[in-house]
Every structure is written in structure tokens, then in C-alpha cells.
């Protein structure tokens, strides 16, 4: 292990310890809430990244999985009194199933077409749910607050437990990402992303691995949806199925760096910070300053650093390593 890797490991451990102790040190509810927002955003970015970043299938409709998660657990809790913990798993399973269902036909589409199809599917589902009386349509679902405590995943006095649930979900998502990334599946994802035809020549069944990616991504995204529902105790199509939410989920990963483990975490930090910062400075989100800033950042990243913030850091790391030990590069072969 070289020095930089060691430094990174220590830094990672330090961040984790700080994160674990954060609500104990910082007790202002606004700060805790701010931290929860970052963790939740990061978790969604990490989940999106499995499909959009590693496997290279850009989804602009991830809110549909988030919404399925939120609605499944909420309906089960509100109508059948089922524990949201089980609801979370049920939501994940249904979201995965739905992902496989739409993935099967849509994965035949390439690039721009796939992105547009996901956009359309999410919009259709939003319309359908808005007009579906069983799930209270446009009115939305209020969750029962009676079952306060860990069993019911409802915390009314302090938001701190939500912090730990969000952190747990984020760590779980990172773990899943990491396991996939390090296994042959991760290599296959990258191969499919970089050159699908070449990947096929090596025996890779494109559809199968894209379906693995979308199922895993949908499951984790849906879990995030359940957490949101439990934290807010109210959901409606506008809050968990909106097109703008799909965009935001994609943005988190893009901003931080697609296809990297911690990129989305960095992206969430920056994105939520920008949102909160502009809210502080300009008073409200209605001003559009947050959109100007992150719209501008996306354009700049797309133009100059497709790897996002993590991509930039990676470049610096490579430059640093190159300075440390001059990597042997033989002279060109004269082509």
C-alpha cells in the first residue's frame, strides 16, 4: 500500500467516525436535518450510479423507483399496519420487478433513446398514480404517527434516528456498489458501457447484465423512497414521483462523478450545500439561483470534465502518482 492509498483509507475512516458522531456533537435540528438531506441525496446518487454510471444506461426517470418505494411502504403501513421495515423490502422488491419489466424492452434502445424512454415512463406513472384513488391520487397519503419508535420507523421528538437510518442506507448502497464494482459484474458493466459490441464478442449477454444493474439500482432507490416517506410522514405524486426529482437524482451522480464509488457522495454534498446556500442568501428556492448554479455546473462539467468532481480528483491523483514515480512509458511504436 502506497502513501496516498493509506492517506485515503485514514481519511475515509475519519469521515465515517465523524459521521457516526455527528448528531452527538451537533444538535441543532436544522443542522441534523441538513446532514440527513445530504445522506439521503448521496444514497440516491449511489443507487443511480450503479445503472447510469457503471453500466452506462442513463436513466432520467429514477423517481419512478423512489415513488414505488415510498408508496409501497406507505400503503402497506397506512392500510394494513405493516412495519415500514418490511415495507421497505417490499417496495424494493416491487421496484426491482418493475425495473425488470421496463428494462426488458427498453434496453434494446441505445443512448439518447433509453434516456428518453425512462423520462416518458416516469411521467406516465406519475399521471397514473395521480389519478389512482386507492393510493389517494393527487391528495397524497398521510402516514400514521401512532407507532412511534424504531419498530414503526417514526420519530417525532428528534430527527437523529433518521440520520442513522439514512447513514445505514448510504453505507448499504456503497457496499452493494463496491461488491458489484469489484466482482466480474462490475467489469462487465464497464465493458458494456464502453463498447457493447466488443463486450458481446467476449461472451457478455448485454441484456442480462443491464437487468442486474437496473434491478439493484431500483431496489436501493426504492429503499430511499421509504425512508423519505417515514421522515416526512406524508407523500404525494409531486414529492416522490416528480420529473424534477428524477433529474436531481441523476444530477447528484453526474456532479460528483459517474462510475466512481464516492462520486455521488461528493455530488450530494455539493448539490445540497448549493441548495441550502442559495436558500440562505436569496431567501427562497423560487428565485432559481440554485438551478442557475447547478445547471451551469453541469454544462461546465459536461464540456470540460465528463468525470465530474471525482474525475477531477482522479486526474490530480494520477498526476501526483506520475510525479512520485515516473511510470515507464516505452517510446511509441511508430504508427
Amino acid at each position, binding site marked *: 500500500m502506497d502513501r496516498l492509498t493509506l492517506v485515503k483509507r485514514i481519511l475515509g475512516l475519519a469521515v465515517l467516525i465523524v459521521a457516526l458522531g455527528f448528531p452527538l456533537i451537533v444538535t441543532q435540528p436544522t443542522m441534523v436535518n441538513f446532514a440527513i438531506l445530504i445522506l439521503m441525496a448521496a444514497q440516491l446518487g449511489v443507487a443511480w450510479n450503479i445503472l447510469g454510471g457503471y453500466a452506462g444506461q442513463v436513466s432520467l426517470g429514477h423517481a419512478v423507483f423512489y415513488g414505488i418505494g415510498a408508496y409501497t411502504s406507505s400503503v402497506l403501513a397506512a392500510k394494513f399496519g405493516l412495519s415500514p421495515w418490511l415495507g421497505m423490502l417490499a417496495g424494493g422488491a416491487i421496484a426491482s420487478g418493475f425495473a425488470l419489466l421496463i428494462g426488458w424492452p427498453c434496453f434494446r*434502445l441505445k443512448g*439518447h433513446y433509453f*434516456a428518453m424512454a425512462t423520462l416518458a415512463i416516469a411521467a*406516465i406513472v406519475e399521471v397514473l398514480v*395521480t*389519478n389512482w384513488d386507492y393510493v389517494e391520487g393527487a391528495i397524497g397519503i398521510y402516514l400514521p404517527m401512532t407507532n412511534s419508535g424504531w419498530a414503526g420507523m417514526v420519530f417525532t421528538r428528534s430527527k437523529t434516528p433518521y440520520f442513522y437510518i439514512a447513514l445505514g442506507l448510504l453505507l448499504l448502497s456503497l457496499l452493494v456498489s463496491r461488491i458489484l464494482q469489484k466482482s466480474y459484474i462490475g467489469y462487465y458493466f464497464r465493458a458494456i458501457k464502453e463498447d457493447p459490441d466488443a463486450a458481446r464478442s467476449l461472451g457478455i449477454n448485454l441484456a442480462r447484465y443491464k437487468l442486474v444493474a437496473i434491478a439493484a439500482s431500483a431496489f436501493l432507490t426504492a429503499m430511499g423512497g421509504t425512508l423519505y416517506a417515514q421522515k416526512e410522514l406524508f407523500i404525494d405524486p409531486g414529492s416522490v414521483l416528480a420529473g424534477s426529482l428524477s*433529474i436531481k437524482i441523476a444530477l447528484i451522480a453526474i456532479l460528483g462523478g459517474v462510475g466512481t464509488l464516492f462520486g455521488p457522495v461528493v455530488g450530494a454534498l455539493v448539490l445540497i450545500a448549493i441548495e441550502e446556500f442559495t436558500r440562505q442568501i436569496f431567501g427562497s428556492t423560487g428565485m432559481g439561483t440554485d438551478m442557475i448554479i447547478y*445547471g451551469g455546473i453541469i454544462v461546465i462539467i*459536461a*464540456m470540460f470534465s465528463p468525470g465530474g468532481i471525482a474525475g477531477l480528483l482522479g486526474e490530480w491523483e494520477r498526476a501526483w502518482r506520475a510525479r512520485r514515480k515516473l511510470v515507464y512509458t516505452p517510446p511509441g511504436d511508430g504508427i
Partner: protein
Amino acid sequence: MTHLTMTMLAQTIVSGLMIGLIYALIAVGLTLIFGVMDIVNFAHGEFLMLGMYASFWGASLFFLDPLFTLPLTALMLFAVGVLVYRLVIRRILAAPMLSQIFATFGMMILLRGLAQFLWKPDHRTVPHALVEGKITLFGLQLGTPQLTASLGAVLVTGGLWWFLNRTRLGTALEATSIDREAATLMGINSERMFALAWGIGAACAGIAGALLSTYFPIFPEVGADFILVAFVVVVLGGFGSVAGAFWAGIIVGEVEVLGGFFVGPAYKNALVLSLFLLVLLFRPRGLMGKA
């Protein structure tokens, strides 16, 4: 079917035609850009939004009707399109698809944000529009602004078709769209053609915005209402086909209003989007698209 429902149905079909023609005009710009350079412009709805605001400010500051300022709006949007091409698109032509999606996507968010910042998120309407009210034609009540707008859309779309097929510059653009390399070999400057496609594409969206501004609320996110429909039209018509977009625009307009009529207004968008998915999955090259 009673006489009344027959009239209502006819009314519905005509209003579908009218909105469909506007959809066609928005979509031809999008399809032109895609045809020429294989890039989907997610910010196309925002060009429309800018066209609407240009009309609005012309009307409320200088008391000029959107129909009078329309040529100026078109020119402004042409300039915006060329500028966007020069500043952003030119640099991502060879970039991975992901970067291309995000570049126009980021622009969409940026322009929405700018509009919110500069002009507030309020819904606005053009004061004292020149064409107002309704006229009765063959027993059907038609909104005059809607009728004017759809006629304008037909003229502009037809004009664009004429330009692409009957003028030297237009054929050069069309040639670039069919085979970029061959066009370059024939001495066509593809850089110039790309800029032209963005200019014309944005101008079409701007004109559509100006035409809509007389009867549609104007707000920063208005583009979102139209971009998905425009995608549907482009896909249905076939990426890159102006004539295809024209007919597809009408089809989508009809599906929307007839869906609203028979199934319920709440589901009209879902129906249009389902049509979109069906086309994407079963006939990805659309009605008149290149293979």
C-alpha cells in the same frame, strides 16, 4: 350519437389539429438538430420559453403584439441557437454520449433558473392580445388565437420544408443530415451547417413560443409541458424528418385531445407518452425516419 356529441367530437378533432400543428413546429427544430448532428436537445423547451418571454416583454413594455414582434423573436432565438452551438455544443461533438445528454440537459436547468431569477416564477399572460375571442366556422367554435397560431405554424413549417428542399443552403443542410462525411467531401462546411441547424431549430421553437404566447400562460418551466410531447413527435415522425414531424405533430395532437375526450383529460398525457413508448419499442425509426 346525438347531434351535440357529434359537434363536440368535431370540435375536439379540430382543436387537436390546431395544437398538433404547434407541436409539429416545435418538433421540426428538434428533429432538424438531431438529424444534422445526432444530438438530442433537452433544452429545446427552453427555447420555446424564451420565445414566449420575448413576446411577453414586447407586449407589456412596448405594447407590441406578439404577432408583430414575431420576426424579431425569431431572429433573437436564431442568435441564441447559434450562440449555444458556438459556446457549448461545438465542444462536445466528439464527447461521449453521457456528456452530450448532460450538456443540453444542464442548459435546460440553467435557462429555467435564469428565467426564474430574471422574471419570477409567476404565470403571466400577454396583455391585450390583438387576436382574441372566438369565431364560428361551419358551426364550430374556434379560438381566434389558437387558429392564428396554427395557421402560423403551418406557414413556418411549410417554409422550412421549402427551404430544406428547394434552396441551395437548405439542400446543403439536408445533405449534411443524410451523410455528414459525404457532404464534407462535397465541400459543405459542416461546422457552418451545425450552427445553422441550431439557429433554425431555436428560431422554430421561438416562433412557436410567440404564437403560443397569445393564449398560453408564460412561466419559466413552461418548456417542460412541451418537451416531452416534442420528443414524442420527433420519435414518431422519425428522427431527422421534417415532413415526418409535421404529420406526427398532428397525430399526437389528435391522440391527446381524443384521449382526453374518450378516456378523460387526466390521462391524455399518459396516452401520448404510451404512444411514444410503443413507437420507441416497435418502430424506433418512426414513420418517415432514416433507417
